């Protein structure tokens, strides 16, 4: 009885280990996307509080994995002129500035405007899947360039549903390209709540191998035991 229990426990453990190595795909529509903006000063990392941050919806994703989207009616004319084929091509400073000019010219309202809290955070919470422009109120101290963000942020394989943006806030009197700093500093790709997965799949190889060997040994032992029982009875 004890041996039988050990055997079943071993088999159960192996199956749990095997199941644990597979990533179960999440049904996209079941997940909500959120956007959070964290404002801090570029050099001293000081949080910028009490600053108005506005979210403008530019387009809705109909299928974010395939980058299929539909422009919001107010932006339809403008979106046709911009290259949104990849996130990299979408979230350029040039596109952001063009959209910002368009908003100013056509007096388009934001879908949501918040003030950053004491930690510089403007948490927009759940948002529809889509492409957004984030505009931060300028002040005499700091300037944050408008920037484009997507929710969820997807590179075709992995999707980040909780999108956190850390835009650069520069001192208002700092020119964009100081003459003593010739290489321009590229904009940062918005980061999600998780650091990039930089590991190749080594652990599943080991787990699958150990599980396989365990099952093979158990099966063989079972085969031998039954063979002996059969010999005794005959």
């Amino acid at each position, binding site marked *: 009885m004890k041996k039988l229990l050990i055997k079943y426990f071993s088999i159960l453990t192996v199956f749990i280990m095997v199941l644990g190595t597979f990533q179960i795909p999440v049904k996209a529509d079941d997940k909500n996307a959120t956007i959070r903006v964290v404002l801090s000063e570029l050099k001293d990392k000081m949080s910028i509080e009490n600053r108005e941050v506005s979210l403008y919806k530019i387009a809705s994703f109909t299928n974010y994995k395939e980058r299929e989207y539909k422009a919001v009616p107010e932006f339809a004319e403008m979106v046709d002129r911009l290259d949104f084929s990849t996130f990299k091509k979408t979230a350029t400073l040039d596109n952001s500035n063009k959209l910002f000019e368009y908003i100013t010219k056509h007096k388009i309202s934001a879908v949501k405007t918040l003030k950053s809290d004491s930690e510089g955070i403007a948490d927009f919470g759940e948002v529809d899947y889509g492409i957004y422009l984030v505009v931060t109120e300028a002040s005499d101290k700091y300037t944050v360039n408008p920037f484009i963000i997507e929710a969820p942020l997807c590179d075709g394989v992995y999707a980040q549903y909780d999108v956190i943006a850390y835009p650069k806030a520069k001192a208002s009197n700092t020119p964009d390209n100081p003459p003593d700093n010739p290489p321009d500093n590229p904009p940062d*790709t918005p980061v999600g709540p998780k650091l990039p997965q930089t590991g190749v799949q080594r652990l599943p190889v080991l787990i699958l191998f150990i599980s396989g060997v365990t099952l093979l040994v158990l099966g063989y032992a079972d085969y031998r035991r039954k063979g002996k029982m059969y010999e005794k009875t005959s």
Partner: protein
Amino acid sequence: MKRLRSKILMIAGAVLIIVSAALGAYNRIMEKRGNEGAETIRTELEQIMEEHTDSIKGGSIRIGDDDYIGILEIPKINVKLPISRDWSYELMKESLCRYRGNLESKNMIICGHNMSGFFGELSEVYDGDEVYYTDVTGKVTRLVVVDTEYIDGYDVGSMLENNHNWDMTLFTCNYTGKMRYGVRCVIADGIE
């Protein structure tokens, strides 16, 4: 009939071993392709940097559809790889990626896969080891490792936190993929 269970167990075991072997082979192929791709990009980068052609715009060089900001060298683990300007899982297959920041602002973070030839041996880099960063203008900056740490994969804040105690951070996944091994470096000028 009585031996059916034994046979099922043995077949299942054999299948799992075959799957693990296939996954292992796939990893090896991806590593080989990654190293070959990185070598090609690096060679092209070095050539463009040497010739100072018009491909150098701002702080990056465009190769194919992607922009590269320089080359990172860690002599201790024999790594010399191109760094792409942006990060994505696709780019990480053939280069290191700038995750955030830049060296001018002393807040540059570079991530790389933990496959061999990339950051697979990053955990062997300790305090005092040297790192060289060459930007697209050919300017070489020598950095020295001052700290190493393990950071949870979801602890983005700790990775970004910088109280002026590092100028560049390199990171990669640990074996399980749950943690990130971070190597903090400072520009060597003024240390020695």
